[in-house]
């Protein structure tokens, strides 16, 4: 009866770690400066995006190089609704973002999932850049390179316009975003532990065999594409009020590259890997940018190191260290 005991104890250990980390993140603004909390807030928005991105990359085996498009869709939806239509309810913004991004992802996905590997990556990149050009050129609609302002939203119907900006962002908005991240993480965990998740992993490992076992490869890739697009849109919509201003750079290919970077850095083979990558990326970028203007150069070096020396990312290194210690 040793194995079941070990399995349950491992599960309990993971739950304890998860609860401790969650409580720590939740209480962080109480014992740290506003700036750290603000960086954490942006991390929460990116975390939602990369968790969705990794459903496509880590679990289905499709590397999208234009995924920032959907983040931009969410962010611009927030900008449009708040500053053009005076819709300030965050819940409405999130729902509309999901609807718009899902429709767009459904259309783009129909074309993209017909291809794999580099062709898929290039096609998604092309759509991302197409959207970039649209945002840039239709300035009367989108504000062009100046972008659009995002007004402070109501959270659960409450108006926070009296609260100072940073206090709002690192207070109620921080909690709001964290709760959404927690819910979406739980939903993603359900998805990858479901029969659907099993089929995605089968497609990633061997699409031909999956097809022979009756798995409709193209259809499942499409579902994954739409789900990850919707996640990115929620991430983008939550990021928008934090940055206060959206611009076409959100869908530029380097921003898509950032999402890929975060996921590789943390480790795409692990459920929490992209989150680790996201948090390390955001804090490292802040640190290195304050030291040198050549931060991209250093980040390039880090990426090269990860790909060559630790393809499993930080999560991969941690789990192999844990295994070594066990044996």
């Amino acid at each position, binding site marked *: 009866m040793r194995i079941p005991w070990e399995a349950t104890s491992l599960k309990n250990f993971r739950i304890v770690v998860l609860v401790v980390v969650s409580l720590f993140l939740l209480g962080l603004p109480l014992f740290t400066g506003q700036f750290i909390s603000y960086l954490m807030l942006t991390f929460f928005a990116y975390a939602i995006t990369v968790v969705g991105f990794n459903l496509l990359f880590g679990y289905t085996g499709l590397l999208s190089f234009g995924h920032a498009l959907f983040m931009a869709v969410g962010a611009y939806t927030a900008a449009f609704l708040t500053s053009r239509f005076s819709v300030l309810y965050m819940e409405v913004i999130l729902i509309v973002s999901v609807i718009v991004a899902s429709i767009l992802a459904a259309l783009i996905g129909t074309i993209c999932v017909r291809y794999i590997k580099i062709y898929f990556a290039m096609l998604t990149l092309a759509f991302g850049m197409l959207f970039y050009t649209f945002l840039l050129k239709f300035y009367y609609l989108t504000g062009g390179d100046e972008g659009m302002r995002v007004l402070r939203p109501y959270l659960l119907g409450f108006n926070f316009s009296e609260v100072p900006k940073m206090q709002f962002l690192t207070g109620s908005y921080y909690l709001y975003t964290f709760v959404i991240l927690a819910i979406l993480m739980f*939903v993603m965990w*359900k*998805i990858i*532990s*479901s*029969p*659907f*998740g*099993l*089929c995605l*992993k*089968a497609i990633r*490992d*061997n699409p*031909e*065999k*999956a*097809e*022979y*076992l*009756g*798995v*409709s*490869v193209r259809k*499942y890739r499409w*579902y994954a594409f739409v789900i990850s697009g919707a996640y990115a849109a929620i991430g983008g919509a939550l990021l928008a009020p934090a940055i206060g201003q959206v611009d076409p750079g959100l869908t530029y290919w380097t921003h898509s590259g950032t999402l890929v970077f975060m996921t590789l850095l943390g480790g795409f083979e692990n459920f929490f890997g992209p989150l680790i990558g996201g948090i390390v990326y955001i804090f490292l970028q802040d640190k290195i940018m304050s030291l040198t203007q050549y931060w991209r150069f250093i980040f390039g070096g880090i990426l090269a190191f990860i790909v060559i020396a630790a393809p499993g990312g930080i999560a991969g290194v941690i789990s192999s260290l844990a295994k070594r210690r066990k044996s």
Partner: protein
Amino acid sequence: MNEATGRMILSAQDLHKHYGEFCALGGVSFQINEGEFVSIIGPNGAGKTTLINVLTGLLKPNQGKVFFKDMEITGIGPERLSKLGLARSFQLVNIFPNFTVLEFLMVAIVSRLGKGKNFFSSLLRDQEVTGEALEVAELFGLGEKKDVLTKNLPQGDKKMLDVASAFALHPEVILLDEPTSGVSTSDKNKIMETLVSASKKIGIKSIIQVEHDMDIVFSYSDRIIALHQGKILADGAPETIEKDEEVVCTVVGQKECFKIFSSILNREG
């Protein structure tokens, strides 16, 4: 196998498949009936695997049609075929390397039960799926290895798992591409016994296999189709095939009968 009932279950009509100049299939027609265990034999390059690939819709023939019962299935693709009731296994090991044995079989069962679109239900708590996967694993002697990663299995078990996953689809017809290749001679009969008893249990109506080992072919088949250079050389019961000099020479005892074979060619031409 069940007794042959004579009802047609799979038929090929005048199949042609060319790869550039090379003709892999040059007009192949046959009909498989319910209850038959059919072996397709032939020397290397005779077109056996191409035939399986055309029958299972992976390749579209240049000419000709394939029917499953009354339905035309030419080139409709593996996924739809598996849903209609036609499954296959592969000559080369074809697995999901990062899956455990049980997870591997669950893919087939999830797909057969139409549960693939259950986005939020827990897979491991689904008694129907896990139970059936375990049942299939045990049927194929993989029960004790259910939690082993498939990439860590010995070659013979990988092969068995590939075959088992096709059986887990509960097809009416199963096509096995060299199910015993790369397996030690002593294990071959064990595999065949397992296949036959599993297909009885699951209710598979016909088995079609490509096989090189003539002992296996002659001891298990109800019928043998011999291919040579993309054409059917002979089609009949093992007893008939055994007496057919030409087939024996071309396919069964190639080198030894070279002389007889050339004399037959001279006689014909």
